[in-house]
């Protein structure tokens, strides 16, 4: 069982990495790119047979407390 968490910077937060990559893409000749935002992807392996609902609850808490900083980041959690 795997939990997949995607962490992205909030829109209001400056994303100089994103801007830099956008410029690089433009220099490489890719047109039509109007924005680049760089985030994080975390995969958490869960023991087989883990209760999905309980895991969801626990990981939401973990995502809120540790895995992301709610002041500057949003996250999406999926368990499969």
């Amino acid at each position: 069982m795997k939990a997949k968490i995607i962490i992205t910077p909030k829109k209001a937060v400056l994303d100089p990495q994103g801007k830099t990559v956008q410029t690089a893409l433009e220099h490489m000749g890719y047109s039509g790119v109007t924005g680049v935002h760089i985030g994080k992807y975390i995969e958490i392996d869960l023991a087989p047979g883990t209760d999905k609902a309980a895991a969801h609850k626990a990981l939401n808490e973990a995502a809120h407390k540790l895995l992301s900083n709610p002041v500057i980041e949003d996250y999406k959690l999926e368990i499969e």
Partner: protein
Amino acid sequence: MNFSVLQFPASNCDQDAVHAVRLLGHSARLVWHKDASLGDTDAVIVPGGFSYGDYLRCGAIARFSPVMQAVKQFADNGGLVLGICNGFQVLTEAGLLPGALIRNRDLQFHCENVFLKTATNDSPFTSRIPAEKILRVPIAHGEGCYFADTETLAKLKANHQILWQYCDQGGNLTDAANPNGAVQNIAGICNEKRNVAGLMPHPERACESLLGSDDGKWIFESIFAALKNKTVAAAA
């Protein structure tokens, strides 16, 4: 006065903080992050460095170290806590200070001297800084850009929680004088209760003119004065 200087794995400005406090005439000792108690402490310094390798986010893991429970308790009871650089990051991650520190806007690590304007003398960390004095202090960080949303910023301004701002030699808050893109050139702030403060620059590296500047001592002198007043008040 006894200062406790925390030590996390990969803190690297802890010794400098201890040295600065001792140089200025007070006691300081290192407290390992696994210690659940601070012992006999008058003030806490959370020092600079790359605690936990800056893994995940700067200070994100250090904030869960056992010693931070004691620091939170100490702060809740009104104790003075100063976070320097990574220490500032740890305090924001721990929720003891509002906002967050993110990557410098030019993506470069900045290791240089900056000028700081003291925004208010009304705090235990700035009370002794001579009025109008521009402090020259070094910075050394890659993620020192202070961010807070509009609502938080408004509160910080209303409560005079902004303590130091990057400025030019003349004290002007220009964009050129801002090394990392911090909103409103914010270099350091305090909490609502004014007993917890954090700043990105390193005052502990500016306490001896031999090292280029002794302007940092004013911040420590402010803390010493506040502690002295506390003792006097407690004895009364």
